[in-house]
């Protein structure tokens, strides 16, 4: 089936800049296992040798990242020094499996939740993951219910650091100050006029 294989190979090149570079350097031989016709293989090799191929790869990565950044913006800032590496690892596992790219977002969330090394390296990640997961849960609920119906809804979570110092810079897409002291707070998150609103109080008075 040359046309399906040709499209599959082109998509794979766009999604993997490293492989596109190998095809650029090695030519048709790098595509030998794809069952392509000579013309299809020649076309793909020539595509990888055009400046636009690098742009294709960049745009595909940008498109894959957009829904992740939209859903987990604060977590992306918190793990920024390793964000690229985390994304590379996730995306190398498999291509996106839907045009709305939702599965990529779910897999990113799962990685944040389960990667103990990441949580150890970034001490605020646990708090921020919990905060954004609760905010997302409320936002997801608007799929089925109107914002007016949700006026009384809220989710309470506990954060181990002072939300005032943690959340304010992250709302401006800036990293919070390093080494904030542990100061547990209870945070109540609600949806007010279709926007997330948070209120908090310390669980124990500061010493």
């Amino acid at each position, binding site marked *: 089936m040359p046309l399906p294989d040709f499209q599959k190979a082109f998509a794979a090149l766009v999604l993997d800049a490293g492989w596109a570079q190998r095809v650029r350097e090695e030519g048709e031989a790098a595509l030998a296992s794809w069952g392509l016709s000579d013309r299809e293989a020649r076309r793909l090799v020539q595509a990888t040798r055009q400046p636009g191929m690098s742009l294709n790869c960049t745009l595909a990565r940008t498109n894959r990242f957009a829904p992740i950044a939209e859903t987990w913006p604060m977590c992306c800032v918190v793990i920024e020094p390793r964000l690229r590496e985390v994304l590379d690892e996730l995306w190398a596992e498999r291509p996106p*499996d839907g045009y709305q790219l939702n599965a990529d977002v779910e897999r990113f969330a799962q990685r944040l939740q389960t990667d103990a090394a990441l949580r150890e390296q970034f001490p605020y990640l646990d708090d921020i993951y919990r905060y954004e997961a609760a905010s997302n849960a409320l936002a997801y609920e608007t799929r*089925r219910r109107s914002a007016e119906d949700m006026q009384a809804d809220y989710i309470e979570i506990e954060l181990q650091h002072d939300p005032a110092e943690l959340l304010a810079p992250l709302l401006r897409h800036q990293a919070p100050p390093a080494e904030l002291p542990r100061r547990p707070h209870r945070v109540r998150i609600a949806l007010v006029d279709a926007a997330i609103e948070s209120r908090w109080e310390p669980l124990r008075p500061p010493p």
Partner: protein
Amino acid sequence: MSGQPSAGVLFNPALIDFVSAADHGLDHLAAIPDRCWLDHGIGATTRFEPLLAPTRLLEQAAQRLPVVLHGIGLSICSAEVFDVEYLELLAAWRERLGCAWVSEHLSFTRIGGAHETNAAMALASPCDEEMIELLVPRLQRARQILGVPLLLENAVYYTLWCDEEMSETVFLNRLTSESGCGLLLDLHNLYTNAHNHGFDACDWIDALDTSAVREVHVAGGDLMHGMHTDSHAGPVYEGVWPLLEHLLPRAPNLQAVTFEFHEASWPMLHESGVRAQIARMRDCIAAAHAPA
């Protein structure tokens, strides 16, 4: 929408207050219906999960202005995917909002097989006989399902295919005449391709059967890696306006000119920026329809 082409905008959530205002100056809205559902994929127990908030926004906007649909999920050029379920959903939305036509992209993002995957961007296929043979029966079936004209949007492409069997304009002319579909001519896509690949966009328009053009998109873009990109950032790119002026007297069946921008560009545009694009579109349309 009759007589002179109408002037409109591709709806996004940033526009809700603007569209609700009495003096928005718009004649129509184009809308991406895919924003109103989550697609869990072919074979999922519940394939399309409706999203209440964006649906309400779109319905609210549709009460004020005529809406045409601009789908992004069909991937009509995919060799192994022809998604009748998706088309049936588009048809239901077309009926629900009373749309005069539906448009889709002449490209592929979806890769079929046992487990469907995605390219994460719209990709153009070579202009070959094989693609015409694949597309014509699909497009005829799609028109039947939709029950209104289906317009095909010319693709943006950052790499060229060698040894294509026909030029892009011959390909589009064949597709429209053999399938009965119209064209959504995206002038920013054309500008981007012409700029990046060094051809004359007006010559390209002259080679096109412009009687098939029913809707035009105009948009903005950015430079990246030394190439112009179709980012839909900010106002209409300056180089696109002369293409609109060139096309308008040559497109007798053109019904709508639509400004597209990404909602992230709203802080660059605001209402005044959108109004300025609409006003300039109207000036172009009026100039083309002025008595000689």
